[in-house]
């Protein structure tokens, strides 16, 4: 017989958990109670339900009693839900036909001193679970074939590292770079810390490897125009700009064409210190080794075409559009240097002998504009005294960059060492606030700089002035407590790293969120370092914040490994516990589009949920003004059934219905249990995936059915598992409080609490407080009775 045609047959299993549950709760009474509940065919108590014997009991009951759904009243579903899902799957049931009643962490362990009230609460919890179980539906996990190709955006060291790892594992990679060569900023640096080995010497082989690898399609001088689709199938459109040089013919000799070219412009790859021609190659080690014509500079004289022995110059070259279908995208768009001229007091742009970190890198580079000499740009003479000014554009709220750029201390330590080694008599000073040298071998590197005789002056420089004979730096030596002034030949501003403004387009196309520091935000600031909030999108290197080279390389590899995990099987499983739209009801108001933190909803006449993107938080469902969005699990009818079951017998006063988010506050309540933190028995907790899931109708239903108060608890603000769900919850609560006031119910009956998974004690105290507050308010409806002239309802 089709299960849908007959009443649901439910089995209830009450766990003793040794004495963990049975010592406080009257398990036999719970069993007798459960037996009497509607739809329950069998109720058993088991010593340890998670043991093989316990699981076998469930399995044989499913077979013999033809059970449709199972309720396990035991520990937290966060612990053993996967176990029992496996159990019932083995017995032939759909894994989603399971509901757990948390009578250990949220009952027996937290109400050890009031066994009678705790047993009453456990009865409610079981009744709530049975009510929900009766409304469960089998959900199918579908899998979707995916493209195994990966797009890597950005050809700096992070992108190179990701591309090589993917290609070496056998995945096809498209590496798209905006500039004419890959290599990023690393290709322009001189020696690099903490080993002082030559940057391009260690990077060039990797760049060449990218070029040679048949699994990597390298697209330089190219940009992304559009990205559509979702994880598994991103449809990407881009364009390769014309270099006006045929890459198949160009031999990369560059001297022939560029010496013929009559136009000279400042070289952006030397940060303005040197010059280049209109036909140029960014660096001698460019990959691909192909010249490029800068159309802003070219006067169209045709001399380069005449000079080229390979006839590679093609003035009629057109831009070419390309289309890709990729399963995953790695964003490695890097950073941009802080514009030092914004700190007017340091005189960059006004005083020629004030330079930036990148300019000193180029000066120190043997292939740079000064062939490795450290000179005063104003005179061309070797600089005999050099100051490094730290934290220019970092740790500075006046320019909107409160963060530490992390690499500048080490970069200045390194450049100061290089200068001191080249010119032992030079006076080299580093003006710093704090020296940050945390990393393997970094403190030793600092020690080396001190031993070389570099001066370390603690105190941030307030201004630089140009005098007749050099630059004067003003500072307080904060360790001496003296305000001082010192003369230097050359001042190097240790400029910080900023989020790359050129990456904004890609960020917007993908829907990536940004932190207040404007770098791309990762899915979790600690636990998920290379994942974006969008499935199938990974972030590596400085796109998510300032990083040194070794960390960028590690992140490139990490992102590659994440992309491999996702795509290797060629198909991905879709979580069925997502939202879906009733198109009959939908009015196309787009409220859900704005609330969805995963950008999974689009509207064409009616809303549509991209199930591959949806993470199942349910914020859209609560936001929908016409109840057109439903969740496949944690549906409105299931939650309402739990509320009704909870309030069927109001066995206690005050009586609280609580909605706790799965990730933080429900976990916090579990922690209160494992820590045996005792709190009043007055609350009946309903688990939701996110505080944002709580529909105003849930709150009203609970109050209407006699709950004295409703608690909504979620992750701490700013820590929501779904980014912004708790903010939506907060907003809704504010509105709802106004509504409650309007209908004559004291708005204090609705309370919100934010607590982390580690804050079981805080949650317990909040519940305690709420019970006290509600005791003062009296039973629900007191305020209505007081408002009536007769004093009666």
């Amino acid at each position, binding site marked *: 017989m089709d299960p849908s045609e007959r009443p649901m047959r439910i089995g209830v299993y009450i766990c003793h958990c040794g004495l963990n549950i049975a010592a406080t709760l009257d398990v036999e009474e719970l069993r007798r109670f459960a037996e009497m509940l509607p739809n329950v065919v069998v109720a058993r108590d088991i010593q340890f339900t998670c043991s093989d014997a316990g699981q076998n009991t469930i399995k044989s009951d499913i077979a013999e009693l033809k059970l449709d759904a199972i309720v396990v009243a035991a520990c937290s579903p966060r612990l053993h839900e996967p176990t029992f899902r496996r159990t019932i799957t083995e017995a032939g049931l759909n894994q989603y036909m399971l509901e757990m009643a948390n009578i250990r962490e949220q009952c027996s362990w937290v109400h050890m001193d009031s066994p009678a009230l705790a047993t009453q609460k456990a009865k409610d919890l079981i009744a709530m679970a049975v009510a929900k179980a009766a409304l469960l539906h089998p959900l199918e996990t579908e899998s979707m074939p995916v493209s195994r190709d990966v797009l890597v955006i950005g050809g700096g060291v992070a992108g190179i590292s990701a591309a090589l790892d993917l290609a070496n594992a056998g995945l096809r990679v498209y590496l798209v770079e905006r500039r004419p060569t890959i290599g990023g900023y690393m290709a322009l640096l001189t020696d690099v810390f903490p080993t002082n080995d030559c940057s391009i010497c260690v990077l060039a082989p990797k760049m060449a490897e990218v070029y040679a690898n048949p699994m990597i399609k390298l697209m330089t001088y190219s940009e992304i125009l559009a990205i559509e689709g979702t994880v598994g199938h991103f449809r990407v459109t881009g364009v390769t700009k014309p270099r006006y040089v045929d890459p198949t013919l160009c031999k990369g000799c560059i001297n022939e064409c560029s010496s013929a070219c009559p136009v000279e412009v400042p070289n952006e790859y030397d940060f303005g210190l040197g010059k280049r021609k209109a036909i140029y190659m960014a660096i001698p080690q460019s990959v691909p080794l192909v010249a490029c014509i800068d159309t802003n500079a070219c006067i169209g004289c045709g001399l380069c075409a005449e000079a080229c022995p390979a006839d590679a110059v093609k003035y009629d070259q057109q831009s070419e559009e390309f289309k890709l279908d990729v399963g995953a995208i790695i964003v490695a768009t890097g950073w941009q240097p802080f514009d030092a001229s914004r700190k007017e007091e340091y005189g960059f742009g006004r005083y020629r002998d004030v330079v930036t970190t990148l300019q000193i890198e180029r000066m120190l580079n043997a292939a740079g504009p000064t062939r490795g000499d450290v000179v005063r740009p104003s005179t061309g003479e070797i600089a005999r005294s050099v100051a490094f000014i730290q934290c220019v554009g970092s740790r500075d709220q006046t320019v909107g960059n409160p963060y530490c750029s992390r690499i500048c201390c080490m970069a200045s330590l390194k450049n100061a060492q290089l200068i001191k080694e080249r010119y032992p008599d030079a006076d080299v000073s580093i003006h710093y606030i704090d020296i940050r040298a945390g990393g393997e071998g970094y403190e030793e590197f600092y020690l080396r700089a001190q031993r070389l005789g570099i001066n370390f002056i603690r105190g941030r420089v307030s*201004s630089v002035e140009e005098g007749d004979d050099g630059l004067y730096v003003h500072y307080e030596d*904060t360790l001496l407590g003296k305000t001082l002034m010192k003369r230097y030949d050359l001042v190097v501003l240790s400029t910080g790293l900023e989020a790359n403004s050129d990456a904004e387009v890609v960020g917007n196309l993908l829907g990536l969120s940004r932190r207040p520091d404007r770098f791309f935000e990762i899915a979790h600031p600690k636990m998920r370092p290379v994942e974006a909030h969008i499935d199938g999108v990974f972030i590596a290197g400085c796109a998510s914040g300032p990083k040194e080279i070794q960390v960028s390389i590690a992140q490139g590899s990490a992102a590659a490994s994440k992309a491999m995990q996702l795509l290797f099987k060629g198909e991905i499983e879709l979580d069925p516990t997502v939202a879906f739209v009733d198109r009959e009801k939908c009015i196309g108001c787009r409220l859900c589009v704005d609330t969805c933190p995963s950008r999974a909803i689009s509207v064409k006449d009616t809303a549509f949920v991209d199930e591959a993107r949806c993470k199942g938080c349910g914020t859209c469902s609560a936001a929908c003004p016409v109840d057109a969005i439903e969740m496949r699990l944690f549906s409105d009818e299931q939650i309402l059934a739990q509320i009704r079951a909870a309030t069927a017998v109001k066995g206690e006063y005050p009586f609280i219905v609580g909605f706790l988010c799965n990730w933080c506050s429900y976990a916090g309540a579990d922690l209160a249990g494992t820590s045996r933190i005792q709190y009043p028995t007055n609350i009946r907790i309903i688990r939701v995936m996110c505080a944002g899931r709580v529909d105003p109708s849930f709150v009203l239903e609970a109050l209407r059915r006699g709950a004295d108060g409703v608690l909504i608890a979620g992750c701490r603000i700013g820590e929501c598992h779904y980014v912004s769900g708790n903010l939506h919850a907060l907003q809704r609560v504010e509105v709802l409080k106004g509504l409650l006031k309007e209908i004559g119910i004291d708005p204090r009956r609705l309370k919100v609490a934010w607590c982390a998974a580690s804050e079981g004690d805080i949650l317990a105290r909040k519940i305690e407080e709420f019970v006290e507050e509600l005791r003062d308010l009296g039973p629900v409806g007191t305020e209505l009775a007081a408002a009536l002239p007769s004093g009666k309802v």
Partner: protein
Amino acid sequence: MSGAKFTEEVIRLAGEEIRTCIQCGTCSSSCSTAHLMDNSIRKLIRLVLDGRKIEALASDSIWLCTSCLLCTVRCPRGIRPKAVVSALRQICEREGIRSRDASFERIFMDQIRSMGRISEVLLSAAYALRNPDAAVPIMEMGIELLSRGKVSLDPGSVKGMDEIERIFREFENE
């Protein structure tokens, strides 16, 4: 007022940001009178945060600030060091602590009340009488200025003396 209470009071008057001071010295090295100060502005903030009320209030630096606000414009933490100075002045006032030059201030106010304006010659003379140490440099500078016609011996007069008297009385009544 205990140390901790003193810190809280300055923070209340000058802003929460004070707690975030990183002692970088941008304020003191931006300060035009820093070379005259016993404690730099940076150190003053440290004294405040450490609850060292007596040292902070006894510091000359409080009275040497010219309110140019360069410290406040440049502070990388968004602290207003000038506001800290003002807060300390306010607390001094409230607790009856006078600066070293309190006698100067009294003479200054007395002259305004009696003449409606300041006469540099009379002011200097009155100050020199009360502070014999300062008499010689004042006289030296006075002679130089007189010889160049930079100061006048005639104090002159102003209109509306009754208005000025009214302002003083109103202030006294407060």
